[in-house]
Protein backbone atom coordinates (compact mmCIF):
# COMPACT_ATOMS: atom_id res chain seq x y z
CA UNK A 1 0.00 0.00 0.00
CA UNK A 2 1.34 3.43 -0.96
CA UNK A 3 1.71 6.08 1.78
CA UNK A 4 -1.14 8.10 0.25
CA UNK A 5 -3.52 5.18 0.51
CA UNK A 6 -2.30 4.49 4.03
CA UNK A 7 -3.31 8.02 4.93
CA UNK A 8 -6.83 7.23 3.73
CA UNK A 9 -6.93 4.15 5.93
CA UNK A 10 -6.29 6.33 8.97
CA UNK A 11 -9.23 8.66 8.32
CA UNK A 12 -11.02 9.74 11.47
CA UNK A 13 -14.17 7.59 11.56
CA UNK A 14 -15.92 9.93 13.98
CA UNK A 15 -15.82 12.71 11.36
CA UNK A 16 -16.11 10.48 8.31
CA UNK A 17 -19.82 9.72 8.85
CA UNK A 18 -21.74 12.07 6.43
CA UNK A 19 -24.05 13.67 9.02
CA UNK A 20 -21.19 14.35 11.41
CA UNK A 21 -19.08 15.68 8.55
CA UNK A 22 -21.88 18.16 7.76
CA UNK A 23 -22.04 19.24 11.41
CA UNK A 24 -18.26 19.65 11.61
CA UNK A 25 -18.21 21.64 8.34
CA UNK A 26 -20.82 24.09 9.59
CA UNK A 27 -19.22 24.45 13.02
CA UNK A 28 -15.76 24.89 11.50
CA UNK A 29 -17.01 27.92 9.56
CA UNK A 30 -18.67 29.70 12.49
CA UNK A 31 -17.83 30.63 16.07
CA UNK A 32 -20.89 28.89 17.49
CA UNK A 33 -24.34 27.77 16.42
CA UNK A 34 -27.39 26.54 18.26
CA UNK A 35 -29.19 23.25 17.87
CA UNK A 36 -32.00 24.68 15.70
CA UNK A 37 -29.60 26.38 13.28
CA UNK A 38 -27.57 23.18 12.89
CA UNK A 39 -30.74 21.16 12.39
CA UNK A 40 -31.88 23.45 9.56
CA UNK A 41 -28.43 23.71 7.95
CA UNK A 42 -27.82 19.96 7.94
CA UNK A 43 -31.47 18.96 7.37
CA UNK A 44 -31.33 16.41 10.20
CA UNK A 45 -34.08 15.34 12.57
CA UNK A 46 -33.82 16.28 16.25
CA UNK A 47 -33.00 12.74 17.30
CA UNK A 48 -30.40 12.28 14.59
CA UNK A 49 -28.67 15.55 15.35
CA UNK A 50 -28.70 14.83 19.08
CA UNK A 51 -27.07 11.44 18.69
CA UNK A 52 -24.40 12.73 16.27
CA UNK A 53 -23.64 15.70 18.50
CA UNK A 54 -23.32 13.35 21.47
CA UNK A 55 -20.76 11.27 19.55
CA UNK A 56 -18.80 14.36 18.56
CA UNK A 57 -18.94 15.63 22.13
CA UNK A 58 -17.71 12.35 23.56
CA UNK A 59 -14.81 12.44 21.08
CA UNK A 60 -13.95 15.87 22.47
CA UNK A 61 -14.56 17.62 19.13
CA UNK A 62 -17.65 19.61 20.05
CA UNK A 63 -18.49 21.66 23.11
CA UNK A 64 -22.20 21.83 23.96
CA UNK A 65 -23.41 24.52 26.34
CA UNK A 66 -26.86 25.46 27.55
CA UNK A 67 -27.32 29.20 27.75
CA UNK A 68 -29.97 31.89 27.68
CA UNK A 69 -30.29 34.77 25.23
CA UNK A 70 -32.81 36.90 27.06
CA UNK A 71 -35.54 34.43 28.02
CA UNK A 72 -34.84 32.13 25.09
CA UNK A 73 -32.92 28.96 26.04
CA UNK A 74 -30.22 27.94 23.58
CA UNK A 75 -28.21 24.78 23.16
CA UNK A 76 -25.05 26.24 21.69
CA UNK A 77 -22.45 24.08 19.97
CA UNK A 78 -18.93 25.01 19.00
CA UNK A 79 -15.80 23.17 17.90
CA UNK A 80 -13.05 22.62 20.43
CA UNK A 81 -9.38 23.13 19.49
CA UNK A 82 -9.11 19.37 19.22
CA UNK A 83 -12.14 19.33 16.90
CA UNK A 84 -10.70 22.03 14.66
CA UNK A 85 -7.38 20.23 14.42
CA UNK A 86 -9.12 16.91 13.70
CA UNK A 87 -11.26 18.46 10.95
CA UNK A 88 -8.24 20.14 9.33
CA UNK A 89 -6.37 16.83 9.47
CA UNK A 90 -9.33 14.96 8.00
CA UNK A 91 -9.63 17.42 5.09
CA UNK A 92 -5.90 17.15 4.46
CA UNK A 93 -6.10 13.36 4.24
CA UNK A 94 -9.21 13.26 2.07
CA UNK A 95 -7.63 15.74 -0.33
CA UNK A 96 -5.05 13.13 -1.26
CA UNK A 97 -7.79 11.32 -3.19
CA UNK A 98 -8.55 14.19 -5.53
CA UNK A 99 -5.40 16.23 -5.86
CA UNK A 100 -2.50 15.44 -8.15
CA UNK A 101 0.79 14.99 -6.32
CA UNK A 102 2.66 18.27 -5.92
CA UNK A 103 5.69 19.05 -8.04
CA UNK A 104 7.91 18.76 -4.98
CA UNK A 105 6.56 15.32 -4.21
CA UNK A 106 7.07 14.29 -7.82
CA UNK A 107 10.62 15.58 -7.70
CA UNK A 108 11.25 13.66 -4.46
CA UNK A 109 9.95 10.47 -6.04
CA UNK A 110 12.11 10.93 -9.14
CA UNK A 111 15.12 11.65 -6.97
CA UNK A 112 14.50 8.52 -4.89
CA UNK A 113 14.17 6.42 -8.06
CA UNK A 114 17.33 7.85 -9.64
CA UNK A 115 19.42 7.33 -6.49
CA UNK A 116 17.96 4.05 -5.41
Amino acid at each position, binding site marked *: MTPDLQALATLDRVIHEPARLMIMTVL*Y*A*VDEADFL*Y*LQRECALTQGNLSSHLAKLESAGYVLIEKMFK*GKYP*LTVCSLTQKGRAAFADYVQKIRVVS*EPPSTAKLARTRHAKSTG
Partner: protein
Amino acid sequence: MTVPQPPVLAAEERAWNYWFVDGLTNLVVGANTLLFALAMIYPPRWPPRLLPIALWLTALVLYVVVAVRYREIVEWLKTRTTYPRTGYVQAPFPDPARAANLTTISLGANSPPPEIQILHMQRRITWTIVVAFAALGSLAFLIIQERWKWTVAGILFSVAMILARKDYRLSWILPVGFPILGLYITALVPRLQGSSYFICGMGLLFVLDGAVTLIRYLLQNPKPKAPAA
Protein backbone atom coordinates in the same frame (compact mmCIF):
# COMPACT_ATOMS: atom_id res chain seq x y z
CA MET B 1 -20.70 33.89 -13.42
CA THR B 2 -21.82 31.38 -10.81
CA VAL B 3 -19.02 29.56 -9.05
CA PRO B 4 -19.97 26.75 -6.66
CA GLN B 5 -18.45 27.58 -3.27
CA PRO B 6 -16.63 24.93 -1.26
CA PRO B 7 -18.87 23.82 1.65
CA VAL B 8 -16.86 25.51 4.42
CA LEU B 9 -16.81 28.88 2.65
CA ALA B 10 -20.49 28.53 1.71
CA ALA B 11 -21.38 27.75 5.36
CA GLU B 12 -19.47 30.83 6.51
CA GLU B 13 -21.20 33.02 3.93
CA ARG B 14 -24.64 31.73 4.95
CA ALA B 15 -23.79 32.44 8.60
CA TRP B 16 -22.84 36.01 7.64
CA ASN B 17 -25.99 36.58 5.61
CA TYR B 18 -28.08 35.12 8.44
CA TRP B 19 -27.58 38.38 10.35
CA PHE B 20 -29.56 40.22 7.64
CA VAL B 21 -32.16 37.53 6.89
CA ASP B 22 -34.95 38.98 9.06
CA GLY B 23 -34.69 42.66 8.08
CA LEU B 24 -34.18 43.77 11.70
CA THR B 25 -30.83 45.36 10.87
CA ASN B 26 -32.36 47.65 8.24
CA LEU B 27 -35.33 48.35 10.50
CA VAL B 28 -33.08 49.58 13.32
CA VAL B 29 -30.80 51.52 10.93
CA GLY B 30 -33.88 53.17 9.40
CA ALA B 31 -35.44 54.03 12.77
CA ASN B 32 -32.16 55.54 13.94
CA THR B 33 -31.82 57.58 10.74
CA LEU B 34 -35.36 58.86 11.38
CA LEU B 35 -34.34 59.97 14.88
CA PHE B 36 -31.40 61.88 13.41
CA ALA B 37 -33.66 63.45 10.77
CA LEU B 38 -36.14 64.43 13.49
CA ALA B 39 -33.39 66.26 15.36
CA MET B 40 -32.43 68.01 12.10
CA ILE B 41 -35.98 68.97 11.15
CA TYR B 42 -36.76 70.48 14.55
CA PRO B 43 -33.57 72.22 15.69
CA PRO B 44 -33.80 74.49 18.76
CA ARG B 45 -34.84 78.02 17.78
CA TRP B 46 -34.63 81.40 19.45
CA PRO B 47 -36.34 82.23 21.79
CA PRO B 48 -35.85 78.82 23.43
CA ARG B 49 -38.96 76.90 24.45
CA LEU B 50 -38.90 73.91 26.75
CA LEU B 51 -40.92 71.40 24.69
CA PRO B 52 -39.09 71.75 21.34
CA ILE B 53 -35.71 71.68 23.08
CA ALA B 54 -36.72 68.62 25.12
CA LEU B 55 -37.92 66.84 21.96
CA TRP B 56 -34.77 67.76 20.02
CA LEU B 57 -32.54 66.63 22.86
CA THR B 58 -34.48 63.38 23.32
CA ALA B 59 -34.18 62.56 19.60
CA LEU B 60 -30.47 63.33 19.62
CA VAL B 61 -29.73 61.32 22.78
CA LEU B 62 -31.80 58.38 21.49
CA TYR B 63 -29.94 58.54 18.18
CA VAL B 64 -26.56 58.36 19.94
CA VAL B 65 -27.70 55.55 22.25
CA VAL B 66 -29.07 53.47 19.35
CA ALA B 67 -25.93 54.13 17.27
CA VAL B 68 -23.64 53.03 20.12
CA ARG B 69 -25.79 50.07 21.22
CA TYR B 70 -26.84 49.04 17.70
CA ARG B 71 -25.64 45.45 17.91
CA GLU B 72 -27.15 44.82 21.35
CA ILE B 73 -30.51 46.23 20.23
CA VAL B 74 -30.61 44.08 17.10
CA GLU B 75 -29.52 41.06 19.16
CA TRP B 76 -32.30 41.74 21.71
CA LEU B 77 -34.87 41.87 18.91
CA LYS B 78 -33.48 38.70 17.35
CA THR B 79 -33.83 36.75 20.61
CA ARG B 80 -37.57 37.42 20.39
CA THR B 81 -38.12 36.84 16.69
CA THR B 82 -35.31 35.06 14.85
CA TYR B 83 -33.63 32.64 17.27
CA PRO B 84 -36.82 30.81 18.34
CA ARG B 85 -37.78 30.38 14.67
CA THR B 86 -34.63 29.57 12.72
CA GLY B 87 -31.92 29.32 15.36
CA TYR B 88 -28.85 31.21 16.42
CA VAL B 89 -25.42 31.39 14.85
CA GLN B 90 -22.41 33.54 15.61
CA ALA B 91 -20.46 34.22 12.44
CA PRO B 92 -16.75 34.78 13.03
CA PHE B 93 -15.39 38.32 13.25
CA PRO B 94 -13.81 39.28 9.91
CA ASP B 95 -10.20 38.29 10.36
CA PRO B 96 -7.83 37.94 7.38
CA ALA B 97 -5.85 35.12 9.07
CA ARG B 98 -9.01 33.12 9.73
CA ALA B 99 -10.33 33.80 6.24
CA ALA B 100 -7.05 32.56 4.77
CA ASN B 101 -7.31 29.45 6.97
CA LEU B 102 -10.87 28.76 5.77
CA THR B 103 -9.79 29.18 2.18
CA THR B 104 -6.86 26.83 2.71
CA ILE B 105 -9.10 24.22 4.34
CA SER B 106 -11.63 24.55 1.53
CA LEU B 107 -9.34 24.70 -1.43
CA GLY B 108 -6.15 23.07 -0.36
CA ALA B 109 -2.68 24.45 0.17
CA ASN B 110 -2.58 25.43 -3.48
CA SER B 111 -3.80 28.87 -4.44
CA PRO B 112 -7.55 29.09 -5.09
CA PRO B 113 -8.73 28.18 -8.59
CA PRO B 114 -8.89 31.14 -11.01
CA GLU B 115 -12.73 31.24 -10.99
CA ILE B 116 -12.81 31.71 -7.22
CA GLN B 117 -10.01 34.29 -7.33
CA ILE B 118 -12.04 36.17 -9.95
CA LEU B 119 -15.19 35.88 -7.82
CA HIS B 120 -13.44 37.30 -4.74
CA MET B 121 -11.90 40.07 -6.82
CA GLN B 122 -15.29 40.91 -8.34
CA ARG B 123 -16.80 41.15 -4.86
CA ARG B 124 -14.08 43.50 -3.67
CA ILE B 125 -14.52 45.67 -6.79
CA THR B 126 -18.33 45.68 -6.36
CA TRP B 127 -18.05 46.84 -2.75
CA THR B 128 -15.48 49.50 -3.59
CA ILE B 129 -17.87 50.84 -6.25
CA VAL B 130 -20.85 50.67 -3.83
CA VAL B 131 -18.95 52.70 -1.23
CA ALA B 132 -17.73 55.12 -3.93
CA PHE B 133 -21.29 55.75 -5.18
CA ALA B 134 -22.63 56.22 -1.63
CA ALA B 135 -19.76 58.63 -0.89
CA LEU B 136 -20.46 60.52 -4.13
CA GLY B 137 -24.14 60.76 -3.15
CA SER B 138 -23.14 62.21 0.22
CA LEU B 139 -20.70 64.62 -1.47
CA ALA B 140 -23.49 65.83 -3.75
CA PHE B 141 -25.20 67.11 -0.57
CA LEU B 142 -22.25 69.31 0.23
CA ILE B 143 -20.78 70.36 -3.11
CA ILE B 144 -23.73 71.04 -5.42
CA GLN B 145 -25.67 74.16 -4.51
CA GLU B 146 -28.55 73.67 -6.98
CA ARG B 147 -31.89 72.12 -6.11
CA TRP B 148 -31.36 69.17 -8.44
CA LYS B 149 -28.60 67.89 -6.15
CA TRP B 150 -31.24 65.75 -4.38
CA THR B 151 -32.08 64.01 -7.64
CA VAL B 152 -28.37 63.38 -8.27
CA ALA B 153 -27.88 62.12 -4.72
CA GLY B 154 -30.96 59.88 -5.06
CA ILE B 155 -29.70 58.36 -8.30
CA LEU B 156 -26.21 57.80 -6.88
CA PHE B 157 -27.59 56.08 -3.77
CA SER B 158 -29.87 54.02 -5.99
CA VAL B 159 -26.91 52.82 -8.10
CA ALA B 160 -25.07 51.92 -4.87
CA MET B 161 -28.08 49.85 -3.72
CA ILE B 162 -28.44 48.10 -7.11
CA LEU B 163 -24.78 47.07 -6.92
CA ALA B 164 -25.12 46.01 -3.28
CA ARG B 165 -28.01 43.73 -4.27
CA LYS B 166 -25.53 41.56 -6.17
CA ASP B 167 -24.03 40.26 -2.92
CA TYR B 168 -26.64 41.02 -0.25
CA ARG B 169 -30.33 40.37 0.11
CA LEU B 170 -31.93 43.78 -0.40
CA SER B 171 -35.43 44.35 -1.70
CA TRP B 172 -36.20 46.64 -4.66
CA ILE B 173 -37.58 49.25 -2.25
CA LEU B 174 -34.20 50.95 -1.78
CA PRO B 175 -33.02 51.13 -5.43
CA VAL B 176 -36.45 52.28 -6.62
CA GLY B 177 -37.16 54.53 -3.63
CA PHE B 178 -34.01 56.67 -3.71
CA PRO B 179 -34.56 58.34 -7.14
CA ILE B 180 -38.23 58.96 -6.27
CA LEU B 181 -37.15 60.50 -2.97
CA GLY B 182 -34.58 62.69 -4.78
CA LEU B 183 -37.15 63.90 -7.31
CA TYR B 184 -39.70 64.58 -4.58
CA ILE B 185 -37.26 66.67 -2.53
CA THR B 186 -36.13 68.58 -5.65
CA ALA B 187 -39.67 69.39 -6.71
CA LEU B 188 -41.56 69.94 -3.48
CA VAL B 189 -39.38 70.58 -0.44
CA PRO B 190 -37.96 74.06 0.39
CA ARG B 191 -34.24 74.17 -0.33
CA LEU B 192 -33.09 74.80 3.25
CA GLN B 193 -34.97 71.76 4.55
CA GLY B 194 -33.80 69.46 1.75
CA SER B 195 -31.04 67.72 3.71
CA SER B 196 -33.18 66.88 6.73
CA TYR B 197 -36.07 65.67 4.57
CA PHE B 198 -33.75 63.59 2.41
CA ILE B 199 -32.31 61.90 5.51
CA CYS B 200 -35.85 61.43 6.83
CA GLY B 201 -36.87 59.81 3.53
CA MET B 202 -33.77 57.63 3.63
CA GLY B 203 -34.74 56.45 7.13
CA LEU B 204 -38.29 55.71 5.96
CA LEU B 205 -36.98 53.67 3.01
CA PHE B 206 -34.78 51.56 5.29
CA VAL B 207 -37.65 51.07 7.76
CA LEU B 208 -39.93 50.03 4.90
CA ASP B 209 -37.32 47.64 3.49
CA GLY B 210 -36.70 46.15 6.94
CA ALA B 211 -40.43 45.83 7.67
CA VAL B 212 -41.17 44.09 4.37
CA THR B 213 -38.25 41.68 4.87
CA LEU B 214 -39.34 41.02 8.47
CA ILE B 215 -42.96 40.31 7.48
CA ARG B 216 -41.82 37.98 4.70
CA TYR B 217 -39.47 36.21 7.13
CA LEU B 218 -42.18 35.82 9.79
CA LEU B 219 -44.64 34.43 7.25
CA GLN B 220 -42.10 31.95 5.91
CA ASN B 221 -40.94 30.88 9.38
CA PRO B 222 -43.81 30.52 11.82
CA LYS B 223 -42.79 30.05 15.44
CA PRO B 224 -42.51 26.31 16.19
CA LYS B 225 -45.00 25.04 18.73
CA ALA B 226 -43.57 23.87 22.03
CA PRO B 227 -43.85 20.08 22.40
CA ALA B 228 -46.69 18.98 24.63
CA ALA B 229 -45.53 17.98 28.11
